[in-house]
C-alpha cells in the first residue's frame, strides 16, 4: 500500500504550491495517473480522502485522469493504445517503441481559493 505515501507527497506538493501563490485554500486537485504507473487509482482516492481531512487540501476535490498505455513505434511510426499489456507495436510487432503515456504520476492542475 504505497498509495498513502504517494498521496502524502502529492498533498505536500499541493500545499507548497498554494503557499507559493498566496492562496487561502485548494478547491480542486487534478492528477494524471498512468495505468502502468504502479498505483491503484481507487486507493489513491481513498488515501486522498483520508489525508485531506486537515490542511489546505481540506474539502478539495480530486480529479483523476487514468492514462492508458500509449506507444509510438519507431519502426512504422504508428501511434497506438494496445489492448493488452505488451510493449510492442500492435501494427508491425516491432519492439522498437517509445512509451508516450501510461507510466506517469503527475500533478496537472490546482484550483486555488482566494478571498
Amino acid at each position, binding site marked *: 500500500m504505497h498509495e498513502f505515501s504517494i498521496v502524502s507527497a502529492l498533498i505536500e*506538493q499541493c500545499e507548497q504550491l498554494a503557499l507559493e501563490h498566496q492562496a487561502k485554500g485548494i478547491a480542486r486537485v487534478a492528477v494524471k495517473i498512468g495505468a502502468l504507473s504502479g498505483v491503484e487509482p481507487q486507493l489513491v482516492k481513498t488515501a486522498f480522502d483520508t489525508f485531506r481531512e486537515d490542511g489546505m487540501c481540506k474539502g478539495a476535490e480530486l480529479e483523476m485522469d487514468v492514462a492508458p498505455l500509449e506507444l509510438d513505434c519507431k519502426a512504422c511510426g504508428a501511434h497506438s493504445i494496445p489492448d493488452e499489456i505488451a510493449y510492442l507495436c500492435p501494427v508491425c510487432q516491432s519492439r522498437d517503441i517509445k512509451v508516450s503515456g501510461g507510466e506517469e*504520476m503527475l500533478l496537472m492542475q490546482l484550483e486555488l481559493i482566494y478571498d
Partner: protein
Amino acid sequence: MCKDCGCSIAGHEHSHDHHHHHELSTNPQLNDKKTLSVIHKILDKNDVEAAHNREHFEEHGVMAFNLMSSPGSGKTTLLEHLGDYTSKKFCVIEGDLETSRDADRLKAKGISAVQIQTGSACHLDAFMVHGALHQQPLDNMDICFVENVGNLVCPASYDVGTHKNVVLVSVPEGEDKIEKYPVMFRKADVVLITKCDLLPYFDFSTEEAKSQVQKLNPNAKVICVSIKEKESMQEVAHWFEQELAAFNATLETV
C-alpha cells in the same frame, strides 16, 4: 556541499532536469478561484533525492543495483553466495519491515551490510537509502546492492538512486508472476529465475517466463540460477561484472 545531508560532493548541484512551469489563470465566473496549471511529478522530491544518491555512488566509483522480488525468492541468499564467484567488492543496504536478520546473515559472511527497518512501509525510498549509504565504506567498494523490501508492487514506483534494477522470481512462485506484476518486471534490467534446482519438481516454464519478460521489456536479460549450480552463479557474477565495467567506462568519459 550538499545542503540536505552535509556530505561533501564537489561542485554539487542537484540536476533538476524538470522545468517548473506554472500558469495561473482566473476563472471569469469565480473571481475568488484561480486555476494553476502545473506538470509536476508527484514523486519529484523522491526523484531529486534519488539523483543525489546516484551522485554519491558515482563520486565513490560505486555502481548500485536495486534488488527487488517477493519475500523469500532468494535475494539475501544470492548475495550470501555471490562473493564466492566475484572478486569485486560489494556492500549491501538491506530493507525489511522488522528485524536485522538479513543484515546479520550477510555480516556473518563478512559482507558490510546496513539494515533499514521500514516499520510499516512496504518499500524503500530514496531518503531511507540516503541515510544508509552514509554508513557504508563506499570508497572501498565496487558495487552497492540495495535489497529492497520483499514486495512485487510498491518498490517498483520508487527510484532509490541505483543504476540498474535486478528482479528475482523463484521457481516455486510460478512464471505467472511476471504477467501479474507487469510494472515491476517492466523495470527490470535483468530477471533472475532463482531456485532453478527445483525446476524438476514444479511446472515452471522458463521459456514462458522469458517470453513474458520480453513482452514487457525487450532489453531485459533473463538468467536461470541456483546457488547449488556453480555455472549459473558464475553467469550471474559475470553479468554484474559486465555491467560494472560498462558503468566504469561511462564514469571515465565524464
